[in-house]
């Protein structure tokens, strides 16, 4: 409701667009993962102070993402007409929101235990993190195409461009899966050096980082449904 502007206006028919906040929300997820990447570098270098500091920063960004998500949901009442199905939009918002949630969780797990592992594992973690970050950044590019899609009111060409990006995100997530499995094997091969507790902790980290890419892929998939099922 407009507060006391003393006008009888056409404004009431214009609802606020959920698409700009959606792009902002995707970028918050991206920011979380970029911070997590920094945090993992610090972790591998044994700089636990920095890991702690970054964990707090990620908490803040994740909360900002939650606020955007809540705003989008609360503004989508049943009387709002969108160029896509509102349900599809909400279905895609959910996994997108999990990107920052999962990054937050990994950031926390980095703070609880120092890294005691051979160099090959550090390299493996770096590869996994880099590929995951790449996946998420490609996903951000994908979401930003929504602006152009709306502008041309979903022209065939733009829809195709978007769908190509969806496929790319999916392919990249598959590569993350491969790195993830290899890293888990490596960790278990070094079981004697790392110790049972270390294996548990590292396996959990691997799983957590892999989940981030999973969520990006999942959200990309839902985005495709949203764009195709208009």
């Amino acid at each position, binding site marked *: 409701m*407009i507060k006391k502007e003393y006008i*009888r206006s056409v404004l*009431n028919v214009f609802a606020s667009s959920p698409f700009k906040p959606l792009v902002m929300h995707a970028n918050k997820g991206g920011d979380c993962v970029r911070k997590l990447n920094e945090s993992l570098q610090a972790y591998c270098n044994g700089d636990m102070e920095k890991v702690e500091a970054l964990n707090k920063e990620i908490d803040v960004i994740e909360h900002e993402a939650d606020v955007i998500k809540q705003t989008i949901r609360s503004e989508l009442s049943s*009387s*709002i007409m969108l160029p896509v199905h509102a349900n599809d939009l909400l279905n895609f918002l959910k996994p997108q929101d999990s990107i920052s949630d999962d990054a937050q969780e990994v950031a926390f797990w980095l703070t609880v235990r120092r890294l005691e592992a051979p160099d090959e594992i550090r390299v493996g973690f770096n590869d996994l993190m880099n590929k995951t970050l790449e996946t998420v950044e490609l996903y951000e590019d994908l979401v930003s195409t929504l602006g152009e899609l709306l502008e*041309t*009111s979903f022209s065939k060409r733009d829809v195709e461009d978007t769908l190509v990006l969806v496929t790319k995100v999916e392919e990249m997530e598959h590569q993350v899966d491969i790195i993830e499995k290899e890293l888990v094997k490596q960790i278990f091969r070094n079981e004697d050096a790392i110790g049972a507790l270390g294996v548990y902790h590292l396996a959990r980290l691997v799983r957590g980082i892999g989940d981030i890419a999973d969520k990006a892929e999942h959200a990309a998939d839902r985005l495709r449904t949203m764009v195709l099922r208009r």
Partner: protein
Amino acid sequence: MSLFDPLVLLLVAAGLYMAWNIGANDLANAMGTSVGSGALSIKQVIIIAGIFEFGGAVLFGKRVTSTIAKGIVPIDSISAIDPHLVAIGMLAAILAAGFWITLATFYNLPVSTTHSIVGAVLGFGLTAGYYGMIGYSEIKWDVLTKIVGSWLVSPLLGAVIAYIIFTLIRYFILQKTDDPYIIEKKFVVLQTMTACYIAFAHGSNDVANAVGPIYAGLNSLDMAGVSVPLWVMVLGGIGMVVGLATWGYRVIETIGTRITELTPTRGFSAEFATASVVVLHSYSSLPISTTHTLVGSVIGVGLAGGLAAVDLSVIGKIVVSWIVTVPVAALTCALIFAGLLGVGI
């Protein structure tokens, strides 16, 4: 009867207030869409609106003005009893409509000045019937039915035309382009034209809400003939442009900053549809609400997939405002008219 008779002066003053109100709000609404899309600056919009609103009112506003003045209530029968009765009744009608509009503006309700004045004039007619000045059957119910029917048809027609225009733009232009932003830039020129068109249309239809009652009063006092005098139309035009310049620019500003979603292609579609529907009704002598037609047209663009988010709950609010406005304006007018007769004016 002189122009400086207190009753005539009051009627003209009330009409001017109504015109100011229409310019400050309804015209600003119609023009705000051009600012929102970035097609025009506020200054440009005010200049365009000033010229074309005035032109529409003076050149094409007489038909609807006659409908408001003589189309609903048989003023000739009433003025046969006493010419002052019509002037008093029409003064009551403007005051009632003005009061209701001011209240609606205060509470941000989507009430139309057109609906208010038609309701108020009907209230005058019904009161005249109650006092036995005319028979109830002498009120031109067939015209009134047509008018109310046009209130339903005009937003729907706006929606259909806007839907078709935007679908064509989308299919033949937007979907074939590499860079939609260049297309939008090209549409800025077209939207400048529709801004003129919509101002002209608005002037041609809504000026009647202010000057219709003035003309009715002057006509029965033998100060105006069969045709609406030019100076009356000019007065209405000036009143609306002054309303826009003194208050309406703030409304335009508010609307302009809020509806950035309405890019030039979308704005063009909605404005062209609205202006065409309004001009058509001005031609058919039917008073309709420009704002409601514009809302219909915007929804049409939304239905064609042109807008990121459209709030359909506004339809319910508008329907409620239809149902409430006519009885409330009629009743208020009846009370004021009876009151004015009671104190012996």
